[in-house]
């Protein structure tokens, strides 16, 4: 995963940069604070939002809280 971050920073890591890892399903309050409108994990492969909303409109959706 560091490879992805390297792509973002151009391989540079300075003292004013911090890299962190948050495990799926273990998001802490600090992380969630950056998503004030809500945070949802969709248990499937990524699709476009148009497709996702169409799928939800036809099949419905079940959230586990």
């Amino acid at each position: 995963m560091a490879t992805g971050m390297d792509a973002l920073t151009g391989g540079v890591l300075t003292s004013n940069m911090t890299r962190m890892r948050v495990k799926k399903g273990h998001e802490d309050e600090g992380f969630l604070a950056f998503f004030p409108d809500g945070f949802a994990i969709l248990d499937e492969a990524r699709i476009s939002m148009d497709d996702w909303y169409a799928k939800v409109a036809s099949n419905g959706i079940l959230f586990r809280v």
Partner: protein
Amino acid sequence: MKIAKDFTKTHNKPKGTKVSRVPQGTEDSTFKSFFDGFYPHVVEDYGTDNSKTKNSQDMSELSAQAVKARTLMFEKLGPMDQVTKKVYVVGADFHELTEITDPRENGKFFAESCYVVYLKSASHEYFINW
């Protein structure tokens, strides 16, 4: 490892679910960060049964550390309204990052993909891998 692999199968976890092993007693900060009240080894004292007291002390200390770490993060970033947030989805080859621009996808994370949340303030940058 077999138990973990069986667990992912029996509980229908996503096919990309990773299994890693952390030897007992060498838990790193990343591992501990997943447990709000993570407590380290309790020193055995066969004279008195004070393990419960010690555990609760350790838990409260570590809980305080987690709060401290969170506070430090917000201190480094400064005021929230001055923090720029970008979310990238990581490609299958782990090299290509695609920025998520659709506002409807804000806060929606697909479990079978990996993401990088990039937070930038005037003084600090955070790269959070999810």
